[in-house]
């Protein structure tokens, strides 16, 4: 394998007409270390209120829905209300994250609750987000033992808990937070950017929702930044 690698790299250098070391290697190393940002759209900037508003509008523009809640304890009722309103099964699979499993689910006895990685028959999942991007209404999900990836894809309905302070303006701000959490040059196994529910336009260019992933995507935006009354 080393042979194949060295051969290809040597051929590339020959095509480029340059050596492997020298000023080029230094320039590349410093570009990787500096990771300069490109043009960031103006719509990614604004006050906290503006960014949260824009996030909400862009989430809706992506054909997802969003509801605001004022306290974590409202999550069970908000989930139950959403499922009832859309006439969906009241069986909820939670990401095995204490922040979700410790919520007061006993207050909504109509919901049947379980937690763990996604099973083929799960119909509704609730997962926590890592970040939200106001620029496009994108939800950023990371994989780890408490947030298995398939919960975001297998169930027909995906509900995401987003905390207000997790919403940032641009993708570059998300990258900064990823580096803060995981270190330079290191990522969790998957980082998923999700913008709306699954869809396909492959049959006569007619847009259909729910191709392989969730048909419905709902965001619960927890307002954790407002001054406490």
């Amino acid at each position, binding site marked *: *394998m080393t042979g*194949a*690698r060295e*051969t*290809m*790299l040597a*051929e*590339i250098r020959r*095509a*480029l007409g340059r050596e492997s070391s020298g000023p*080029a290697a230094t320039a*590349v190393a410093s570009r*990787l270390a500096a*990771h*300069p940002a*490109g*043009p960031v*759209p*103006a719509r990614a900037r604004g006050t906290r209120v503006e960014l949260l508003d824009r996030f909400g509008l862009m989430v809706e523009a*992506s054909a997802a829905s969003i509801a605001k809640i004022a306290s974590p304890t409202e999550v069970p009722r908000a989930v139950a209300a959403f499922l009832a309103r859309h006439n969906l099964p009241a069986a909820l699979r939670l990401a*095995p994250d204490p922040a979700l499993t410790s919520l007061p689910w006993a207050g909504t006895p109509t919901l049947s609750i379980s937690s763990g*990685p*996604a099973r083929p028959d799960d119909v509704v999942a609730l997962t926590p987000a890592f970040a939200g991007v106001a620029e*496009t209404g*994108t939800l950023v999900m990371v994989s*780890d033992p408490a947030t*298995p*990836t*398939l919960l*975001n*894809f297998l169930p027909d309905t995906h509900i995401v808990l987003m905390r207000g302070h997790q919403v940032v303006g*641009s*993708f*570059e701000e998300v*990258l900064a937070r*990823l580096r803060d959490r995981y270190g330079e*040059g290191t*990522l*969790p*196994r*998957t*980082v*998923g*950017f*999700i*913008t*709306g529910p*699954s869809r*396909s*336009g*492959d*049959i006569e*260019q*007619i847009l*259909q929702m*729910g*191709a*392989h*992933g*969730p048909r419905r995507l709902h965001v619960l935006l927890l307002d954790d930044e407002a001054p406490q009354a």
Partner: protein
Amino acid sequence: MEATCHRFGAASARALADEQLQQALRHLRGNFVVRRAQAAARLPEFDSLRDAARAIKDEALEHLDLYLERFAAKVEESGGIVHWCSDAAEARAVILDICRGLGARTVTKGKSMVSEEIGLNDHLAAHGIEPIETDLGEYIIQLRGETPSHLIAPAIHVTRAQVADAFRAAHTDLDPARSLDEPATLLAEARDRLRQRFLAADVGITGANFLVAETGSTVIVTNEGNGDLTQTLPKAHIVLAGIEKVVPTLEDVATILRVLARSATGQEMSVYTTLSTGPRRAGDRDGPAAFHVVLLDNGRVRMLGSEFREALRCIRCGACLNGCPVYQAIGGHAYGWVYGGPIGAVLSPAFLGLAAAPDLPQASSLCGRCEDVCPVRIPLPRLLRRWREVAFAARIGAGRSRVVTRAWVWLARRPRLYRLLTGLAARLLGFAGRREGAFRFLPFASGWTATRDFPAPEGRTFHSRWQQRERP
């Protein structure tokens, strides 16, 4: 995939006469083209993002060896395995080996043009491993025994009635009398069918939109979520990517993502953009136990050292196909290989050799729409013209067109004679055609007049009007 680019002439004539195809292609103009323009207009920074995207790809190509080294080192650091393959046969062999090592019987696949390029499905099937395409469009054409006709909408040439026929023929356990008139019904049937295949697959194979040198991540972009189910459920995830997919950093991915979906479908972002770094980690509750990246050259290094390097910037959005009057008229299959449209007309001669695709660089009016919409500003008309020059110099192409070209060159080098003869011709044609305004037949121009009228000139040449300062 077997190339039939040398039969472009006959294939495009067939495409023009194919009523079903023409009906299917009609959906193209109102959708992708309009939505791309709207998305670009919604983002004031769009053109400066295109400049930045071009600069990123140029930087990655200029230091391709160094970024690939870093990418591979980071993949290995995260527990993945990198395979360096110089051609299609090597890549097929590596992938087959991995599948056999796991005792794989079925393999699910995310959409990958490189997989088409190396003919992977036929190779796996020939060795007893069933490949299952999971992108809806790819699934449809796999059932129909076809290849993709568009970079991001592989079944754009298929009508819904044809999809229904394909499903009835393949899903024989379902009620033959069921209604399949609506796209929603068709989608539901495919979703149900493929869900079972996702859960049973032993290996998942995807392409990559980006390889990130900084972190050793591979990135896929989909709207359906099929790529994520493909790469997360099975025991192993194999990423198959051309070496030109590497970009330096995560910031560079963010910049290019801002132009990718907008150029492709007119979305602000595609639904799922997933960065994968290595196999399942300690404590993870799902994800593949093994993570392989197959890096493919297959002619790319040769392009890198040639005057066609700029075509390696391509991010496969399909915008140049959608806007192209030639692609709009004939669709993708007539181009005869994996990549159609203007970018295909540049790439196919580079990958296959010009002698195998002599007509493709001629399949353009050089109107320039492709370059106008390209998110990484590939100068497609210039590259097509360059291929024409190469063809002329190498004596490739139809003899008659070479004779005419040579005569034209001779004439164009004699300005006085040129002006005299073109002036005469303009006056003569202007006089002869003044009543009808166009010719139904012209001697020596039957290739043109067989399918359309030739407009009659007004009587004077551009040169003479320019000299008299009749400027607009």
